[in-house]
């Protein structure tokens, strides 16, 4: 069992901490997929667990041994915890079979013969027995990663950490490595895998960590995370939403600059010219023409979400003041124009929210 308590990691060169206060328990036999946008500390979390990164604060226990304790015999703990790297990191001066035999002989005191027999068994398992006497630089990326997995397994670890094992591979080789990992997931070992392959993550894991905002943002079963994400960022990530948010807090806000923001956002996300025009139009009519004139002290938050997969855009506008359905009450011309840009509109009011009025506009596509 892995137990993490108040883990914090900051790099000394920039003061922003990449992990802020992570606490989690991982049970034996869990297969955990760690997903999330880049730069949210997925690899850092993994590397903290076997102390390749030294945590700035916090404690980690592996099977009751606190590895963050300076007196801990780190070598012994690491022997029970294999790691597979994005860049394979096979030992370049040794043949494939020696790569696998080295650690069991050096660290577990296995005889040459035992290490060899076990090594060959593992090589057969990953389908590379015939490459036993080749050097790593003679192999393809997929073959290297399968060897790296065999090398990790040779130490018979209880926990295996896989840090983006297929990210450095040619798309044609991803399959062979995933197949090996899939088999691994069935062996009952504790697995923790950082990956960007959502389908793969969903297929092998029984638990998913979605990482964002410096920690485990949402923790749940694959069904929960992929089909019914509870939290906003998870939903956006799973649906691959591109989001633009801005706030207007004065009648005299810089309209042209805001319109420029929207243009830039559309351009960056390769939103089609027509859709971009409609987004701009919807914003202009609803916010600039209808809302700003009526609100005495405008506090308007606009959020535009664009889904690349569905090529659809949704604009959500939340604003203060008494109940006022901006999608129905306004001058005729703006409403007409709004209608031409939007396919569906709905208005809701939630008295408890900071900005009680909400208008959701589905931008017309195609």
């Amino acid at each position, binding site marked *: 069992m892995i137990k993490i308590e108040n883990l914090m990691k900051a790099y000394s060169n920039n003061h922003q901490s990449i992990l802020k206060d992570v606490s989690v328990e991982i049970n034996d036999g869990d297969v955990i997929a760690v997903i999330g946008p880049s730069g949210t500390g997925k690899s850092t979390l993994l590397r903290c667990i076997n102390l390749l990164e030294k945590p700035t604060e916090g404690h980690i226990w592996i099977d009751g041994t606190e590895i963050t304790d300076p007196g801990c015999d780190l070598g012994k703990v690491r022997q029970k915890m294999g790691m597979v*790297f994005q860049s394979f990191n096979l030992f370049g*001066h040794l043949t494939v079979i020696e790569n696998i035999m080295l650690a069991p002989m050096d*660290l577990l005191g296995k005889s040459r013969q035992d290490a060899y*027999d076990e090594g*060959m068994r593992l090589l057969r398992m990953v389908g590379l027995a015939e490459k036993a006497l080749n*050097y790593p630089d003679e192999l393809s990326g997929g073959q290297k990663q399968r060897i790296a997995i065999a090398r990790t397994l040779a130490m018979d670890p209880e926990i295996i950490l896989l840090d983006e094992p297929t990210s450095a591979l040619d798309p044609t080789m991803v399959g062979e490595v995933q197949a090996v990992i899939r088999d691994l997931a069935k062996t009952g070992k504790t697995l923790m895998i950082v990956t960007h392959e959502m389908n793969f993550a969903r297929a092998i894991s029984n638990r998913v960590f979605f990482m964002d905002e410096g920690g485990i943002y949402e923790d749940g079963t694959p069904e929960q995370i992929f089909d019914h994400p509870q939290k906003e960022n998870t939903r956006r990530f799973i649906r691959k939403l591109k989001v633009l948010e801005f706030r207007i807090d004065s009648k005299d806000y810089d309209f042209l600059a805001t319109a420029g923001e929207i243009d830039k956002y559309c351009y960056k996300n390769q939103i089609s010219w027509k859709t971009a025009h409609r987004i701009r139009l919807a914003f202009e009519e609803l916010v600039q023409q209808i809302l700003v004139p009526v609100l005495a002290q405008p506090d308007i938050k606009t959020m535009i979400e664009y889904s690349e997969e569905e090529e659809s855009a949704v604009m959500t506008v939340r604003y203060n003041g008494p109940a006022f359905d901006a999608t129905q009450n306004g001058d005729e011309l703006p409403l007409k124009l709004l209608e031409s840009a939007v396919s569906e509109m709905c208005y809701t009011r939630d008295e408890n929210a900071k900005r009680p009025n909400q208008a959701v506009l589905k931008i017309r596509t195609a």
Partner: protein
Amino acid sequence: MRTKGALSMPRMIPMKKLKDTTNLYTLKKRMLSLILLCVLLWAGAACAEDDAAAITSLEDLKGKRIGVQTGTTFDKIVLDALPDVKISFYNTNPDLAVALKTNKIDGFPGDEPVIRLMMAEEGGITILEERLDHFEYGIAISKTEAGEKLLAEINEWLASIRGSGELDQLVRKWTDGPESEKTVPDYASFPAPNGVLNMATEAAYAPMNYYRGNELVGLDIDLAARFCEARGYGLNVLPMLFDGILPALQSGKADIGMSGITITEERKESVYFSDPYYTGGTVIAVLKKAAGTEQTGGSGPLQGENGEGAGGQTEPQMNSIQDSFYKTFIREDRWKLFVSGVLTTLLITVLSILFGTALGFGVYMTCRNGNMAANGITRFCMWLVQGMPVVVLLMILYYIIFGSVAISGIYVAVIGFTLTFGTAVFGLLKMGVGTIDRGQYEAAYALGYTNRRTFFRIILPQAIPHILPAYKGEIVSLIKATAIVGYIAVQDLTKIGDIVRSRTYEAFFPLIAVTIIYFILEGMLAFLIGKIQIRMNPKKRKPESILKGVKTHD
């Protein structure tokens, strides 16, 4: 008629040399550079022959170039007599002779007996009739309390042998007598009830001090030995470069210095001088052709110098390769000198490689994990060692740091080169280990390897193949760099070459012989490292050795 006698010799070297050596050494690449060297030398010699008007008097030397041995007082003497000459400095008399012959200088001053001997050995040089001045040689004694007593003792003894006429007799023996009579007492076997005197001398200044075969002889040695014998001292002779003698006395490395040292007021400030034991005159040596001297007969180049021989010199001078070879290697068993020189060079090189590698490795291991103090100290030491010319480092070690310790120059050289080689090895390791990807460490750590074991099992085996080619280069540089140990009284190959040149006054042959020997030594060491390089490269292993001791079929 203009003679071509001696000058034709260097031009003959290149052609014959090739034939003589190609079948001996098949190192073709090295031969190629040797050919280049020979062509350059030949070109230099050829140039030297042509211009230059005859110089027959001091008057003709006005505005000309004069070469002077470093550390002597000749520059002052020359400038007093000929104020507008251009002075350049050379390390030894043989260098001056070569410079003269290759037209780098128009003349050089020297003590009359020395230059006369040089004329006898090597034709093409003559002296001007006029003398620049007269001078006196004294025994230099270190300025200490013990030195003061020694001074009185020496002066008393000198007065006694002058009175008896023995001094005159000895001077005549060394400056005018036949070579067979020029012997010195066997000072090594003196009982030394009053202690051993260390004597610094140049050992390249015939007839005052020089090597005959393996034996150090000359008037200076003879006198010192006789004094020691008479007064119950042992004698230990330390050969060194002339300009190292006074520092050796000041630092206490030597008790007395005898090397044809002229007594001057300036030198008296740093050492005591005995009463003079020799009075001579300074003469200027010039090219024979330049001096306009007629040839003795219509003889061809091969017998050009016949009959010039003096001081018991009777062998005919054939200016040919065989003759040069004979003079350089065979006469007086000089090959033994070369053998000892090669051994000294090899000893210094090999010990420096071993200790330097150990030092560099040890320092690297201490600094590897980024220990702040260790890194700081290392950076400072490396900055110090690398910033200094090696020759300066050696002299500082020899004369200052080990100034008051009786330590052989060889050990000082080994220490000096261990330091420089150690810094090189440190740099190579840093560079080589730096090329290893961070991921190799992480993979090893993740498997459970400790930091130390990771380094030795995973990192170093991969770094060594990167390091070895540059390491080989460092070793070759090291052999060449050891050529400067002559500065601290070590007789390595280069110094032996100088010593032999100081006797034969052969301009080129010893230089080329020394060059060839260096090439052979470098070739041998590079070959050895090449073998290691193959052994150390894990990828060059035979497939059957990879799985030795394992049954490969189930």
